[in-house]
């Protein structure tokens, strides 16, 4: 995994904008470079890596479509990793995206887009085809949203599923099985992980087109 280091069971990404933090995370120096602590309680991608994700197919020049970018916590770490690539950050809440916009002003490889991920046609003209799709949006139809957006994908992707936002009455394990099956109709699922103890009743899938 490029631009990521692991020290004492903690992970860090190489800071694209030295001396700047995004959410008050700790900064450390390692072999002359500055790294940002990547908090698994605030970022499910960090939790997935700590829980044993084997491969994160992101390169220094990858193009990423990030759905559900919220205030930019995880997107900022993705931006560290793909330093020469681009991260298109789609978020539909005008309030949540305010902070993300401030982050984008410092990080030239992040492109904010205030749109609903249910309607890829509305931002097709703002993005390009990407090597990776990352989705974390906690909607009942989240797998369907991902499939709609895969028209922009030539490569890999990751999907976070929060059981509670799909159905509170069903057992999480059942929900994850069902959603995985839906994914498998369109992609090859490479890895499936749970995110405990960092995020409760969450599953994480890495897939390939």
């Amino acid at each position, binding site marked *: 995994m490029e631009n990521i280091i692991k020290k004492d069971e903690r992970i860090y990404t190489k800071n694209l904008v030295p001396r700047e933090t995004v959410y008050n995370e700790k900064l450390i120096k390692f072999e002359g470079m500055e790294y940002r602590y990547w908090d698994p309680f605030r970022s499910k991608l960090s939790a997935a890596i700590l829980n044993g994700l084997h491969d994160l197919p992101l390169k220094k020049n990858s193009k990423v479509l990030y759905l559900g970018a919220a205030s930019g916590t995880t997107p900022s770490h993705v931006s560290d990793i793909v330093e020469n690539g681009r991260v298109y950050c789609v978020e539909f809440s*005008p309030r*949540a995206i305010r902070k993300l*916009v401030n982050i984008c002003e410092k990080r030239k*490889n992040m492109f904010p*887009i*205030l749109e609903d991920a249910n309607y890829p046609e509305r931002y097709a003209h703002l993005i390009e085809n990407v090597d990776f799709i990352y989705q974390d949006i906690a909607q009942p139809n989240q797998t369907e949203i991902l499939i709609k957006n895969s028209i922009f994908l030539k490569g890999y992707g990751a999907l976070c599923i929060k059981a509670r936002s799909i159905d509170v009455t069903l057992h999480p394990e059942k929900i994850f099985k069902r959603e995985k099956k839906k994914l498998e109709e369109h992609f090859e699922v490479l890895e499936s992980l749970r995110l405990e103890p960092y995020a409760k009743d969450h599953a994480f899938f890495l897939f390939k087109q």
Partner: protein
Amino acid sequence: MKEYLVFNAFGAFAVKDKKVLEHKFFKDLKNPIKEIKELYEKYPDSVFENREIAERLNAKHEFPNEGGIFLRDNIDSIMKLDNEYYINLVKEKIKKASESKDKVIIQAVQALEQVDQSLNFFFERLREWYGLYFPELCDRIENHAEFAGIVKNEERKEKSMGADLEDTDIEMMKSFADKTLEMYNFREELVRYIKENIEKLTPNLSNLINPLLVAKLISLAGSFKNLAMLPASTIQVLGAEPALFRHLRKGAKPPKHGIIFQDPRIHTAPRWQRGKIARSMASKIAIAARLDFYSGEFDESVSEAFEIRLDAIRRKYKERPKKRR
């Protein structure tokens, strides 16, 4: 080979056979229609990807199409992208997002409550009315919407204890079922509308509890701002006013929870855990409401902290407490 007319944030491109035939960069990024039109006049058979613009120009439309895919595959060889335009675009959209969205949502929530009440009356009435004709169906089908659907669409075929009625009597029942179902569908639409708008307004609260419950809390508090200013102890009993009133007047046992009781993590818990869960949930709601109202910054750890506390309560108070004499 078809011709395509596609554009991105910076320019319009006529594409055919995986080649750009001609392009025009926008002079005024906010007003790209001029260059798009000029290009369209030169390539009047071309197919657009963007529905809105295609409709405005009365052009052909297909999404996604080969032209768009070509453009999205080759941005780097065509131009250098800069995120400044994206930042400004979002800033402008944020400005346009209404500040008083909570007032609109409150009205919608109250409309929902009244629609629910009316629907209940209507469904009950329909059962009683149609029951004269086909009582067995009432016993068999418990779900209201399903029942109304059958009344509207199907005939009574089997032998029934019900009376034989004239066609006009049955037609009127079917029409009533039809109108009730229409109202029911409207209800679903209303719920979707409320959820979507509340999620945009309160990312942290909506991550912690059901967005519909967030909307009800805001409605009870009177405004988004009011909710953000309430202490956790008040949030815990919001919606339980009659019980609270009794408590204050007669010194009866204080109510443990108001409307947040609707969250299944409280009401499906054993009775002796409910108060503790409600107290913890209310305190996290207070934190999330302030975060949402004052900054909108999304922080995953608020709802995770609640889940951790929830697990702890479930473990620690697993057994029913023994009554002391």
